[in-house]
């Protein structure tokens, strides 16, 4: 007897022998492996790894919820009557948001690869294939990608989350019903997110000339990333606000598609409030509208761009207006940076951060997260205090620069590890002395030159105006000190020129590092402002921080001094640590 998999295999083999099937296969592969001309190489991950990474968050979060829904845990907490559907509402909202954010992020990440590019044009158009066949094959690949990502992101949570929730019910039918509704909610939200990003891309392509599209595209992606981060940050507050909303749906819920899909799920379960019913009714029409818009703008964008690629290929480098020369800043940089290496590489790092889309996107996401957390802290500070002066001294307000500096320093540290155009690093391999790397100093200078003015310029005058010179000086000094110390700690044993080394490998201690970041954030951005808030009342209490500062200053220096020479060498390739080393005596 033939299994469905074998039938599907035969069917696929039959179709992939035909030009259309081959084209679909080609486009699917290029969407995963990267299109565009520039820096696809840096993050070219395999399909399997990408799908595994995308599926992980849903699975992990479902497992973490075992504690919440476990009957034993409930019994220990003394919670007897437990409305499981009521309790599942915030979690369901979280899964909807997660599904939208991950799928939207994939669409943003693969933005350049969704449409056929110049490489496709050069390879495919000379072949005896109709342009409409190329168009249709790419469309099929895009729809396939949307389906695959939606399924992959939600597959684990569609089974695990309902299983965890239904564990208290002991009814299989409850599980089936809950799982089916949950699956509909998260899958539709995933589709919506993907096609919304796709529509935006197509719309820009259809409306803008190619050169303007390239410029605007970068900003549009940044805005989408910030929106997705903001959406993720709504998971804590929105469910409770929605649950307690009486009457018609509040205006802000129309701006959050995740609310519509939550409304749909609740409506299907018969637990929807009038506001949720109102939102649920929006879901299907808007989803269909987004898909229709995506299709129309895809057709228009395709006609406008793909057909005209040949004309663009002929265009030679367009002269631009003279940008601000790096040499004009040379006197200033020469004072701050000591060696030609640092001066040259500072410009390289700075320009990469400004111009490489991958790096800019990661930094935008981090900055977006910082912005959301800071706004939340500011709102909390304003809520709790009667005046701006009192609000400024609250731990929430004081935490804002700490939150921002922590996220930006960590973000920059992570971004330094992401390679760009690896094949071009031969020039650094040729010119730099691997035994005398100044990479740590360079990275520190980049971070501090970028951050210190950003801290000093707003924080000092604002606090001087609100609280007087002493408080302003103490607060600014503390933030600057913490910034320098965190930078030093994060750059211990950093021996790469940013962006020129292969991606770091997953090591056994990577999870420990991740947990350290979370704890680090708690200490740096939450505990320090708590202490500062009380210490600013009696400034002498600030002196108790001196031993902490000395220790945090000396430890990285001690570690750096005791680093073996082999671990100081400049590297351009991350090599796995081997269990067995071959001596290669025969060579």
């Amino acid at each position, binding site marked *: 007897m033939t299994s469905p998999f074998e039938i599907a295999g035969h069917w696929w083999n039959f179709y992939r022998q035909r030009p259309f099937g081959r084209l679909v296969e080609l486009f699917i592969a290029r969407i995963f492996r990267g299109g565009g*001309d520039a820096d696809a190489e840096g993050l070219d991950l395999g399909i399997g790894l990408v799908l595994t990474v995308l599926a992980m968050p849903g699975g992990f979060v479902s497992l973490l919820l075992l504690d919440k829904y476990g009957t034993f845990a409930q019994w220990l907490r003394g919670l007897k009557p437990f409305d499981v559907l009521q309790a599942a509402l915030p979690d369901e909202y979280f899964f909807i948001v997660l599904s939208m954010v991950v799928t939207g992020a994939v669409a943003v990440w693969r933005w350049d690869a969704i449409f056929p590019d110049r490489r496709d044009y050069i390879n495919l158009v000379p072949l005896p294939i109709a342009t409409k066949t190329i168009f249709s094959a790419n469309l099929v690949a895009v729809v396939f990608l949307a389906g695959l990502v939606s399924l992959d992101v939600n597959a684990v949570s569609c089974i695990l989350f309902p299983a965890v929730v239904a564990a208290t019910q002991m009814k299989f039918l409850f599980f089936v019903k809950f799982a089916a509704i949950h699956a509909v909610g998260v899958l539709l939200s995933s589709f919506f997110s993907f096609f919304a990003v796709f529509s935006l891309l197509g719309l820009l392509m259809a409306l803008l000339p190619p050169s303007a599209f390239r410029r605007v595209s970068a900003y549009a992606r940044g805005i989408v990333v910030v929106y997705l981060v903001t959406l993720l940050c709504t998971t804590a507050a929105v469910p409770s606000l929605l649950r307690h909303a009486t009457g018609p749906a509040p205006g802000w819920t129309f701006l959050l598609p995740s609310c519509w899909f939550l409304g749909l799920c609740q409506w299907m379960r018969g637990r929807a409030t009038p506001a949720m019913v109102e939102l649920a009714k929006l879901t299907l029409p808007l989803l269909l509208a987004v898909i229709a818009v995506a299709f129309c703008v895809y057709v228009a964008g395709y006609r406008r761009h793909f057909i005209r690629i040949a004309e663009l290929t002929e265009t030679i480098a367009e002269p631009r207006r003279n940008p601000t020369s790096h040499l004009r800043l040379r006197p200033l940089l020469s004072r701050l940076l000591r060696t030609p290496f640092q001066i*040259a590489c500072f410009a390289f790092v700075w320009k990469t951060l400004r111009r*490489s889309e991958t790096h800019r996107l990661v930094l935008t996401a981090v900055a977006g997260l910082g912005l959301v957390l800071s706004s939340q802290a500011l709102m909390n500070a304003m809520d709790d205090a009667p005046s701006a002066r009192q609000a400024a001294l609250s731990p929430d307000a004081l935490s804002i620069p700490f939150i921002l500096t922590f996220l930006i320093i960590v973000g920059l540290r992570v971004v330094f590890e992401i390679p760009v155009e690896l094949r071009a690093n031969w020039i650094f391999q040729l010119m730099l002395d691997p035994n005398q790397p100044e990479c740590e100093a360079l990275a520190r200078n980049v971070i501090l030159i970028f951050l210190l003015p950003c801290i000093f310029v707003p924080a000092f005058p604002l606090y001087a105006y609100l609280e007087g010179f002493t408080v302003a000086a103490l607060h600014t000094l503390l933030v600057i000190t913490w910034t320098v110390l965190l930078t030093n700690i994060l750059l211990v044993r950093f021996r790469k020129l940013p962006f020129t080394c292969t991606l770091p490998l997953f090591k056994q201690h990577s999870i420990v590092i991740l947990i350290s970041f979370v704890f680090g954030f708690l200490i740096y951005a939450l505990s320090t402002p708590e202490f500062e808030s009380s210490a600013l009342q009696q400034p002498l209490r600030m002196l108790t921080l001196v031993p902490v500062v000395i220790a945090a200053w000396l430890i990285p220096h001690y570690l750096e001094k005791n680093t073996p020479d082999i671990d100081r060498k400049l590297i351009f390739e991350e090599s796995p640590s081997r269990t067995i080393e071959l001596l290669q005596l025969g060579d």
Partner: protein
Amino acid sequence: MLEAVHLTKRYASLPAVQDLSFSLRPGQVLGCLGPNGSGKSTTVKMLSGLLQPTRGTVQFDGHNIQDDLTAYRKHLGYVPEEAHLYPYLSGWEYLEMIGTLRGMPDFELAKKIDSLLELFSLHPHRHATIGTYSKGMRQRILLIAAIMHNPDIFIFDEPLSGLDVTSALIIKNLVQALGLSGKLVFYCSHVLEVVEKICSDVLILRKGVVIAQDSVANIGQILGQSLENTFLHLVDEVDTVTVARDIVDVISMRSRLSAA
């Protein structure tokens, strides 16, 4: 003087270059010829210090270059085979970065970059990003980056690739001029006519081994033929005319089958 002394490079156990020895004197333009996979690029990378030899040494003025690579590279101008550059930097920014890394003084750097960009017809495009450059324009940027600090040793790996006729002629004359001014020039190429015209000496590699090394004039006289015929005789075991005829036979096979 630059010397390769019993150079050997193995990738895992596969030898790419075996026991390669030659010397390059000031004023000499040494051409390196060989079919694909003959070890030309590996040799170039070892000479430039990008690859460490498995055995043997590269010596500059009697010192092993691996002892002080940084000092050696100050004397080196290298043009790689493929123009891998950072696409988001402009031509001017890239050259400025290279000049700064080489420790060139500011006033000299700006002046040299401007003049060289002008001479290589890139000045109008100096502020466009390299990603928008054609292959020839990228190649010219590489050439400027290699020569602007006035090095003593030049290593060119297929420098004419992608260049237009005028630029190619300029480079050919430049290489000869560099040789005449007492620089050491190692010139790798597939194009026999170019090597024949601009190089004083030639080194022919096959499967990682030197099979001939002499002045261009002497090599040609080995068989009393042109450099091209001598090269084919020494390197290739195939009859190129027969292969070309076979290719035509294969591509017309389908029509013959259909006719049958």
